[in-house]
């Protein structure tokens, strides 16, 4: 099988080509832009038969993707930070219409102040938009997840849009080795999009996105989205298995974990930090330290049940994340605390807020956090549960 060096953005573009996306409206924004440029190159060279639409804003990008998807064309778009927030209104329309659009969110910090580097604040901000959200840590995972995303989104038990999130610059612009996919195998894995639930067809006229007056069926629509999101948990695992059967590698579905069976403490993280955290945990385990690793792959649906069964008997969980809901804590920390609250016993959960604005999170820094958490558990010390790490001027 062909191997080569590509950036995260190019890996995503290859995924889009393999998935044979058909309508691709994208508005340029750093650090997403090289993804869009690579797709245009694929269309120009005839490797991808799609309509690229040079839209005048991200809001329109999502509107065009919605209209195209409602015509039965597989759509793709991508954005970052301010652009994603600009399309916010249309995100709810896409999921409410149950359109399986796939979007890459090349994570970038939200201004102000402006930063070109990445944290997860932008995609976590769309938490309630009823989009499936997954976080990839490297180029290979991005490429593989684009085709998995369509498979998950278009499954009739799901029919929800999917966002593939990865940190800008750190992942989007760094070259990494990848194994390219075999198009024939991809076609075997993912067939054409042939919807029957939403379709603008003069032979079968429907009025798409009705305006509900009075106390019509709004709540029922939303409940169905909730059911679909629950169904997605199973579908994600099935698709992961299916992918392994054809391509020979798997990611673990909702999350990846190791060492949780004997660990007292785990490091739980997502995105690019996972790679470093995995190394830290492996090295500590080699020294006989009882520590485990969890990489949260899907944030929506939130893998509540799996996390409960994995983490309930532990003594401590360190949630390390590149985001902060100002006025509360990290978004993942809050979600995890709520998921584990009803469990008895349950671990102490410490939230380490790191790397905002793309600030580097090093091996050494993660090792210190791991040791700090282990010490806290061992000495049963009460500490501040939400800690901002690496802030200048803070001791």
């Amino acid at each position, binding site marked *: 099988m062909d191997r080569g060096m590509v950036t995260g953005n190019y890996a995503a573009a290859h995924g889009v080509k393999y998935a044979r996306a058909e309508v691709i409206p994208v508005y340029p924004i750093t650090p997403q832009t090289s993804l869009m440029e690579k797709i245009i190159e694929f269309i120009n060279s005839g490797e991808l038969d799609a*309509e690229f639409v040079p839209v005048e*804003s991200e809001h*329109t990008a999502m509107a065009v993707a919605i*209209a195209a998807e409602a015509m039965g064309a597989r759509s793709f778009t991508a954005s970052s930070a301010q652009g994603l927030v600009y399309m916010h209104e*249309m995100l709810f329309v896409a999921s409410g219409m149950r359109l399986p659009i796939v979007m890459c969110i090349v994570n970038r910090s939200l201004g102000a102040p402006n930063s070109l580097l990445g944290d997860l604040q932008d995609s976590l901000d769309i938490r309630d938009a009823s989009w499936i959200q997954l976080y990839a840590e490297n180029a290979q995972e991005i490429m593989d997840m684009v085709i998995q995303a369509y498979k998950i989104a278009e499954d009739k038990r799901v029919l929800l849009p999917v966002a593939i999130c990865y940190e800008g610059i750190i992942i989007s612009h760094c070259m990494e080795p990848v194994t390219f996919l075999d198009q024939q195998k991809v076609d075997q894995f993912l067939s054409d999009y042939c919807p029957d639930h939403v379709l603008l067809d*003069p032979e079968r*006229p429907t*009025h798409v996105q*009705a305006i509900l007056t009075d106390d019509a069926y709004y709540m029922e629509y939303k409940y169905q989205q909730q059911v679909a999101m629950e169904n997605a948990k199973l579908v994600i695992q099935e698709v992961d298995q299916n992918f392994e059967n054809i391509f020979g590698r798997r990611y673990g579905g909702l999350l990846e974990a190791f060492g949780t069976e004997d660990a007292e403490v785990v490091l739980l993280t997502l995105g690019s930090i996972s790679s470093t955290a995995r190394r830290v945990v492996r090295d500590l385990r080699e020294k006989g330290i009882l520590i485990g690793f969890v990489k949260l792959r899907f944030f929506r649906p939130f893998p509540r049940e799996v996390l409960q069964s994995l983490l309930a008997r532990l003594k401590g969980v360190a949630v390390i994340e590149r985001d902060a809901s100002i006025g509360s804590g990290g978004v993942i920390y809050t979600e995890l605390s709520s998921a584990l609250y009803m469990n008895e016993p349950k671990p102490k959960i410490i939230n380490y807020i790191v790397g905002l604005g793309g600030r580097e999170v090093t091996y050494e820094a993660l090792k210190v956090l791991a040791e700090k958490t282990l010490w806290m558990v061992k000495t049963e010390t009460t500490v501040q549960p939400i800690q901002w790490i690496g802030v200048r001027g803070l001791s």
Partner: protein
Amino acid sequence: MRALAERLPREEFFRSGHPLCPGCPGGTLWRLTGKVLGKNSICTVSASCLALPSHVYPSALTTPSLYLSMSTAPAGITGVSAALKVLKRKGRLKTYEPIHIYAISGDGSAADIGMACLSGAAERNDDGIFICFDNEAYMNTGIQRSSCTPLGSWTTSTLKGKTEKKKDLPEIMVAHHIPYVATASMAFPEDYVKKLEKGRDMGCGFKYIHVHSPCPTGWRFPERKTIEVSRLAVECGLWILYEVIYDQYQITYRPKVRRPVEDYLKTQGRFAHLTREDMEKIQRQVEERWQALE
């Protein structure tokens, strides 16, 4: 009128029983549009008065339509036309007949919140007809001023009358050098039908039709007088019927004798507070506009 009735198909694509206000010209607009564009058409609608008959269940339309948001009806044209192109290439379209794509939007969504979206679709020359239903304010939310509200008009957000001029959206569209721009009025249905047919038969590209749409509810005149008020706007020269084919202007109706604007303004409660000087100012603007267009 009889000639028009004989020329258009008897088949209706817009059913009665819709929730438009009595006297609204929107029903006529949609009925004629359906007859011209026919069964093989797809409409995208922005939040506006005209989204009510199409998207409040049960819909009055018998052809497919997509409601997107306040500002994105033009993006609907873009998305639907892009999908049609690629599906046609891939042999996934069930029909070989041409499918007409059109968007219907109010003046607020076209000229204010959706201006960038409209301009984008026009500049890309996406394939479809954009119809702006201009009732000169945000009527669906209860008569607030838009940039298309004319000088002097009362609205619930301009209690002493609007102090700014009406935005000239058709001229902005002409500046996009698209294949077709036209103005229309429901008092001149033959004229509207001809223009819509032109837009339909031109094939590719972005076509824009701006329909002056008197609103009994918001303009404060009796429901039965909609067509009369529409006609007066044209006869007084306040609303000029013209078309622009690839930058070439053509006036499609010239009043034999241009009546004073007062005849039009006094029919509506929204202008009741205007003084003689105000009316003279508006009259002068009309003369200047005609001179510029001639």
